[in-house]
């Protein structure tokens, strides 16, 4: 953020603008940038997902649009969606039907504000960064419930109710899994969490403490469920619920759901990279030449892992989903918190 404020200051001359104006201008720029990045990652990851799915299922995936491996397929899809008719069912609640996709989109965009891209580039350097991310991403659950309810469609309502039950359940292990890291950092600030992992791969929180190592897997499983992706794609099980909570959505409003789904996928991967995998630090100490790029590469690798899981494992049942969350992941995560505390008391803070 300070790069940006300095740039804006230099642009308009040092004393022409008040601090507030500089702040507002830089925030507007950052928000726009984050929105563009969100849209871009939706484009890139839809194409990537189709290629990964193709690879896993021994087929090609998109090959024609744009010639080279169908790279323009996602762009073409986006253009197609722009031209699709917007249908609001007669039985639906019009206001909430229109508002729900915006709320879901807003939930993901807001969470992106606290992501530390590099040592001096974080949009909103909140002291409560991590906590804030969990808070705003819980707004998406309300958006999904709203969408399902407003559609007045049985598939949509079931999908929304399931989705919300799943997302709220897995929010607990997700938040619990990050607590050992917060205990080591002594701060919720996202930049502080990354700074605490300086000094090569062995200083990443993943390898600092056996309990955090377990917590990482808890986080990873919970993050798949939070993004409603396979094998936890209960809210939109195509074979039973048509398309779940967005059954009735078409055109741009559907695109909002789609966009925020991929934005959230990248978001949870970036958080995994930030909290457990050293953020912008490169694995070998002293080689931090491109912090932002390192951070993004780690995020993309986590996304790939996520896709690999999605296209490999079969979907779980609702009862298995609840069993896994409440009887396995929550007790294990709680044990990780207590265990990390004992470890810190025994071994010091190393």
């Amino acid at each position, binding site marked *: 953020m300070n790069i940006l404020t300095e740039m804006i200051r230099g642009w308009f001359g040092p004393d022409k603008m008040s601090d507030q104006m500089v702040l507002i201008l830089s925030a507007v720029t950052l928000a726009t940038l984050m929105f563009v990045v969100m849209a871009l990652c939706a484009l890139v990851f839809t194409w990537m997902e189709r290629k990964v799915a193709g690879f896993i299922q021994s087929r090609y995936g998109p090959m024609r649009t744009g010639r080279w491996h169908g790279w323009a397929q996602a762009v073409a899809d986006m253009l197609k969606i722009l031209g699709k008719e917007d249908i609001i069912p007669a039985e639906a*609640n019009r206001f*909430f039907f229109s508002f729900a996709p915006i709320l879901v989109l807003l939930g993901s965009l807001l969470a992106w504000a606290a992501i530390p891209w590099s040592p001096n580039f974080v949009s909103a350097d*909140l002291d*409560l960064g991590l*906590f804030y991310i969990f808070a705003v991403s819980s707004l998406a659950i*309300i958006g999904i*419930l709203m969408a399902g*309810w407003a559609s007045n469609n049985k598939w949509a309502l079931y999908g929304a109710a399931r989705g*919300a039950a799943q997302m709220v359940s897995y929010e607990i292990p997700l938040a619990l899994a990050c607590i050992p890291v917060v205990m080591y950092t002594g701060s919720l600030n996202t930049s502080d969490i990354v700074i605490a992992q300086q000094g090569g791969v062995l200083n990443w929180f993943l390898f600092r403490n056996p309990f955090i190592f377990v917590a990482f897997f808890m986080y990873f499983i919970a993050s798949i469920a939070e993004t409603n992706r396979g094998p936890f794609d209960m809210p939109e099980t195509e074979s039973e619920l048509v398309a779940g909570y967005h059954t009735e959505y078409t055109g741009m409003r559907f695109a909002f759901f789609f966009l925020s789904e991929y934005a959230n996928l990248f978001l949870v991967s970036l958080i995994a990279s930030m909290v457990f995998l050293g953020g912008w630090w490169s694995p070998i100490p002293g080689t931090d030449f491109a912090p932002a790029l390192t951070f993004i590469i780690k995020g993309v690798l986590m996304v790939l892992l996520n896709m690999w899981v999605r296209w490999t494992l079969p979907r779980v049942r609702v009862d298995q989903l609840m069993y896994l969350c409440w009887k396995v992941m929550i007790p294990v995560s709680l044990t990780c918190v207590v265990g990390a505390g004992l470890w810190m008391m025994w071994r010091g803070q190393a």
Partner: protein
Amino acid sequence: MEGFLFWFCGILMFLGGLMMVVQRSAVVSAVWLVFSFLCTAGIFALLSAPFLAVMQVLVYAGAIMVLFLYVIMMLHGPVLEDELIPSNKALWPLIAIPPAAVVILLVGWVKGEGLRTMPDSIAADFGTAEHVAQLLLGRYLLAFELISIVLLVAIIGALAIGQRERKLPWK
């Protein structure tokens, strides 16, 4: 700027609350309540209480609303049948009495006590997670441990309400 934002959030919060009360559909008013909660979070943030602000979003706007929506969805359709009966317009002035009483009391209180504004300077860590934790684990330790008991009771209560199928002990 902060003064403007304070009034902006305050007025939006008030409007959200008003919309919540006058809505006929329970789901719609629940959503207005979320809106009102979010504006409250904004006011907390402006009053240098970031932890409370984020907690307001997480617990109230997130958790409580999910529960509300479930309960409402579980119980009824969009509008209850008896909610469709036209209300008696003659009773409307009566509704204004309680809020008016609150406003009069508030104005009287402010006149008597004098309007206390925020102090010019507050401790740097005021309202942060560290500050909250120091209070929770020190001065308010008993209250903090009692919270866990309250939550335990809440779990048992939830089970008791949710158990329709099970045999009642006195039958």
